């Protein structure tokens, strides 16, 4: 019982931040048909920027109430700047190109931004634990957990709700869905696809950065820490179905809980389990569990 509670709680926490990151990835794929390796850069830059901001706040002994706004602003800043730059100067020149080339281009971008991080922030790890300290710890079902970690679950729920609301209840969301469903018809209907793309990409980038920024206080932010996340969020997105938003949710839960289970039960199998599940899902349902419906073209 205790064991399962641990797995569930840790899995849920882990799934939460996977979800935030993967949501960005899957939206970008759904709308633009781009598998964005550079998503890892958003994550890493979000984390570093947040870590830097938190460091700045503590060093100057500013109010602790600034932590949360600092994290959010870091995410938005990174998402808007990096998202715009990458979309405008790399991806826009590549639409209609072979899908593999686009993946490789984003891989190139990812590598460049990895080194830019070292140049900007140095090689020493950052430990922006202050926000987590501030919130302290609680006991739930006999488990001692950081309150900050638990707020991740809250954040993910808010993001999920906002995303659902935005997509189904707003005009913009409906526009987006029509582009996801059939790009050509949307163009024919006079939707400005370029604009949709920029906004989508920046939106996805903000989510990626938010994941990184929010996680920063719970970990040591050091060079290369986005690398594992890139492939893990790929796994999440593939398991759920590339381009599917409910898929990202289910995929994150599956990967998060599986990982938590493996970590507590058989640490040897940690990575193995995640990718084995990914392979199995692909074999049984190549499109992923929740692939969005494809329009039939004759």
């Amino acid at each position, binding site marked *: 019982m205790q064991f399962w509670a641990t797995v569930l709680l840790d899995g849920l926490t882990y799934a939460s931040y996977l979800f935030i990151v993967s949501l960005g990835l899957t939206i970008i794929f759904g709308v633009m048909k781009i598998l964005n390796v550079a998503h890892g850069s958003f994550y890493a830059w979000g984390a570093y920027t947040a870590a830097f901001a938190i460091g700045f706040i503590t060093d100057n002994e500013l109010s602790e109430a600034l932590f949360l706004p600092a994290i959010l602003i870091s995410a938005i800043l990174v998402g808007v700047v990096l998202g715009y730059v990458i979309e405008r100067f790399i991806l826009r020149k590549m639409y209609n190109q072979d899908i593999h080339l686009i993946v490789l281009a984003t891989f190139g971008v990812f590598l460049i931004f990895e080194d830019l991080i070292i140049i900007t922030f140095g090689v020493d790890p950052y430990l922006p634990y202050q926000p987590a300290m501030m919130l302290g710890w609680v006991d739930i079902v006999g488990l001692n957990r950081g309150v900050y970690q638990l707020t991740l679950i809250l954040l993910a729920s808010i993001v999920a709700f906002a995303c659902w609301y935005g997509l189904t209840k707003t005009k913009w969301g409906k526009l987006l869905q029509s582009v996801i469903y059939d790009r050509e018809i949307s163009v024919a209907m006079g939707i400005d696809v370029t604009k949709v793309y920029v906004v989508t990409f920046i939106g996805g980038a903000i989510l990626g950065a938010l994941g990184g920024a929010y996680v920063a206080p719970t970990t040591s932010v050091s060079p290369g820490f986005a690398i594992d996340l890139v492939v893990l969020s790929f796994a999440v997105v593939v398991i759920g179905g590339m381009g599917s938003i409910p898929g990202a949710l289910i995929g994150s839960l599956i990967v998060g809980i599986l990982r938590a289970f493996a970590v507590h039960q058989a640490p040897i199998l940690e990575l193995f389990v995640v*990718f084995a599940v990914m392979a199995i899902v692909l074999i049984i349902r190549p499109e992923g569990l929740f692939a969005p419906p494809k329009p039939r073209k004759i």
Partner: protein
Amino acid sequence: MFTGIFKDTSVRILITFMIVLCVLSSLVLPDWMQNNFMYGLSRGLAILGLMLLWRTNLVSFGHALYYGFGAYAVALCQKYFGITDILLRFAIAVIAAGLLGFCLGFILRKYREIFFAMLSLAFSMVLYGLLAKAEFLGSTDGMSISPSTLLGMELTRQYLFYLITFFVICAAISIQAYLRSTLGHLTTAIQDNEIRVEYLGYSVQKAIHIKYVMSACLAGGAGGLMAASLGQVDPDSMVNWNVSGELVFITIMSGWGNILAPFIGAIIFEFIRTYAFEWAPQAWAAIVGGTLLAIIFFFPGGIWSVIEKVFNYGKKKNVK
């Protein structure tokens, strides 16, 4: 299958190139350069395999699976059977990877595009996940490999170099023979139109499967030779996803116009790496990333298309 293969221009150029390399390496090259050539040629085999797949518009983001599998097969055979013979090592690496490719091929041959890429990635990460945690395989530290022998004799670095060149020539000639065959021509045909290939009476999946196994064998051989020349195998530099990424990177850097292209590309990659570590050790990733973008945007045919242009330019001048 091989009739008249030596009349083929690509094969002649390849053999000339390799002989020149051998002569150079025995006479003038310093050790570090010789090592670079050796690594480049070994890794070039894997690139050749990826090139084959690329011609059918299949890009494997997990080819390090076979590269690493070949390398670990060599390591395990040394550990448990004491095999150090280079011929056996190469054969074991090729066969082990080929068998794995044959099995996984039954699944992968149904997939195209990004799904093929992702499933390949998943398979390779499964292996990585196992190797990185398996104590008896050295976990993340990997295992070390003792120097190779040949028929019971010790093998000097120089002779290892000759042998690798020899393996490369054999492999490349076989691939060229395949490419000029009917089956090889299906490569591009499948990329153009799968339905037509089926209606011409050949199974597309079978054609892809055959090609997939070949490319697995090549990658396995590459891993085996790499293990033998590095003297070390470990999951992070042999199986992880960034290794696959690197292999794909070298492939598009090389271009896919010719069987020699992968080897030239892989050798150039080794030299870039050596110089990068000397001059700008912090910027290695940025150099690779920048090169990747530059190639995609400015030289979509890779190094080989540049070589071709230079060559044709000279030709045209002569005619005038």
